[in-house]
């Protein structure tokens, strides 16, 4: 992949992040009242308020204020939490791994099952499998995530208690936090039982979070594959005497992946949104729950920090999707 393409995408990423910070900055200024008091809370001392006002440059024009704000952001300073005075950046870092673990698990489930179901549906269109799968997919995209989570929780943790109700692992079984990823940490610590426990805790939240993207991926895979299977080069592949599995997986699916990857990228935003709800339901100690808790506590410093981080994650993911797209499609790779 030529560096020029990567460079341009990175530049674009920079602009997006700049825009994101501007939107968050302006929105915080739209809240009526004194921004310094908003960020420090009702009981802040007069000196603290004065210091923060000076730091934010509140008496200076808006562009200067934005410049100062951006400067702090670039140093990794997301401000102090209203609730406990801890740096928001540290609070976020502490919770990021839990969200990443949940989102990755969900995405793996959604991608593999979704593509598999979509491919089988497209190879046997209007079969019993296809009809059932597409019906389920339609149900999946219409499902309120929070309702699905609660119902799964009721079924598998209350009615037939085979899975734990909430949390990431049983009390007292937490492994030493090396990566923050419970599955990885338990493995590194060599604790097989704790690993299984963490895995059990992950099942319901991951399935809940995976449902909507799974349904979307299955639908787009089916329609993309149906279109690709009509193409001349698929007929060529068959005329070469290749096995049908090779025709489907190597020749058709590789081409069908292009729109699938695009949709995957669009859905990661959805996944992050879903994470907020899923974490709230399953008391999953990640970023999503932190942002909701912060909102309830009117902790604007924490909220704006989370929003920025979420938007940054989304932007980076979109960059990765673009690169994956280029890797899959030689036409983009070579001409872009």
């Amino acid at each position: 992949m030529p560096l020029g393409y990567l460079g341009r995408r990175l530049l674009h990423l920079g602009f997006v992040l700049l825009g994101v910070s501007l939107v968050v900055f302006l929105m915080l200024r739209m809240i009526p009242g004194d921004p310094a008091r908003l960020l420090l809370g009702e009981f802040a001392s007069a000196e603290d308020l004065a210091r923060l006002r000076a730091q934010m440059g509140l008496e200076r024009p808006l562009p200067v204020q934005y410049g100062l704000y951006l400067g702090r952001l670039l140093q990794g300073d997301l401000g102090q939490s209203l609730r406990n005075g801890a740096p928001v950046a540290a609070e976020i870092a502490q919770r990021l791994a839990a969200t990443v673990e949940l989102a990755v698990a969900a995405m793996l489930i959604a991608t593999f099952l979704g593509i598999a179901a979509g491919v089988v549906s497209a190879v046997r269109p209007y079969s019993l499998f296809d009809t059932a799968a597409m019906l389920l997919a339609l149900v999946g995209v219409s499902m309120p995530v929070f309702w699905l989570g609660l119902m799964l929780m009721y079924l598998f943790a209350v009615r037939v208690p085979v899975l734990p109700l909430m949390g990431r692992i049983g009390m007292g079984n937490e492994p030493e936090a090396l990566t923050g990823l419970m599955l990885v940490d338990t493995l590194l610590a060599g604790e097989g039982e704790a690993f299984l426990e963490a895995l059990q805790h992950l099942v319901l939240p991951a399935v809940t979070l995976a449902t909507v993207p799974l349904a979307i991926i299955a639908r787009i895979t089916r329609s993309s594959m149906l279109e690709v299977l009509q193409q001349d080069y698929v007929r060529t592949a068959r005329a070469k005497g290749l096995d049908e599995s090779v025709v489907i997986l190597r020749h058709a699916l590789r081409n069908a992946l292009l729109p699938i990857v695009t949709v995957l990228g669009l859905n990661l935003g959805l996944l992050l949104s879903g994470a907020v709800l899923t974490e709230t339901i399953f008391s999953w100690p990640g970023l999503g729950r932190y942002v909701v808790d912060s909102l309830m506590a009117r902790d604007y410093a924490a909220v704006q920090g989370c929003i920025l981080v979420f938007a940054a994650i989304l932007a980076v993911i979109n960059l990765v999707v673009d690169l994956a797209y280029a890797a899959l499609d030689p036409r983009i790779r070579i001409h872009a």
Partner: protein
Amino acid sequence: MPSWEPLAGLWRSRSAALGLGLIAFVLGVALFGPAVAPHDPFRTAPLERLAAPSAAHPFGTDSLGRDILSRVIHGARISILIGLISVSISLFPGTLLGLLAGYFGGRLDSVIMRAMDMLLAFPAILLAIFITAILGPSLPNTMIAVGVVYIPHYARIVRSSVLALKEQLFVQAIAHLGGGHGRILFRHVLPNALPPIIVYATLGMGTAVLQAAALGFLGLGAQPPQPEWGVMLSEGRQYLQIAPHVAAFPGGAIFILVLGFNLLGDGLRDVLDPTLRAL
């Protein structure tokens, strides 16, 4: 002018017919339900709290002894309104911005579309959360938040239709004949850009209902004791272990309404605009 003849195909599309049926059902409940609801949705009855579904209370009662069926019926009106108002809030500004950006191009186009890109850079629900946090949690603010979040989607769709149309001869011909910009835009370009907007707005109704319910569920939307489905779900969450019906029925209602919009949207898309499949 776009051809509306394919609309006849809607009746042949089973998914569209089923979707219309579901929506009509919920709409009927919203319009006439409150008149026939068995109980007052706000009347509490401490002695009957968390009762399981029975003949007297087909959906059971909630933690304050209120009849869940009656509350779900009243909630239909709220959810339909949320859908209509939120979609209007994103539809009209989004369409206008898309028309202007696509038709005039140049500077205006880049300014509008860069601004839209910035909004799109946020995960939808988080932006909605942020906006409600700023405006304060309430039902109207939920509608505004959900509406604003989806403005860029309409702007993009409309802009790309306009760009395609602009190349077509009839628009250029009208421009040569000296038609004013406003006349060209609203009499000629807009009607031809409508099919994808209709499809997206239909699917958008479902999304708006879902998002608003999610905000209600998180405590950022409608506030208790309003019988909004998301709020009811959130109340039911605490009693999941002893009274799952409290959460089950309002969630089922959300699901049915959203399913209706998705089915209708799918059907409309197949009929009106097959190229839109990726959405």
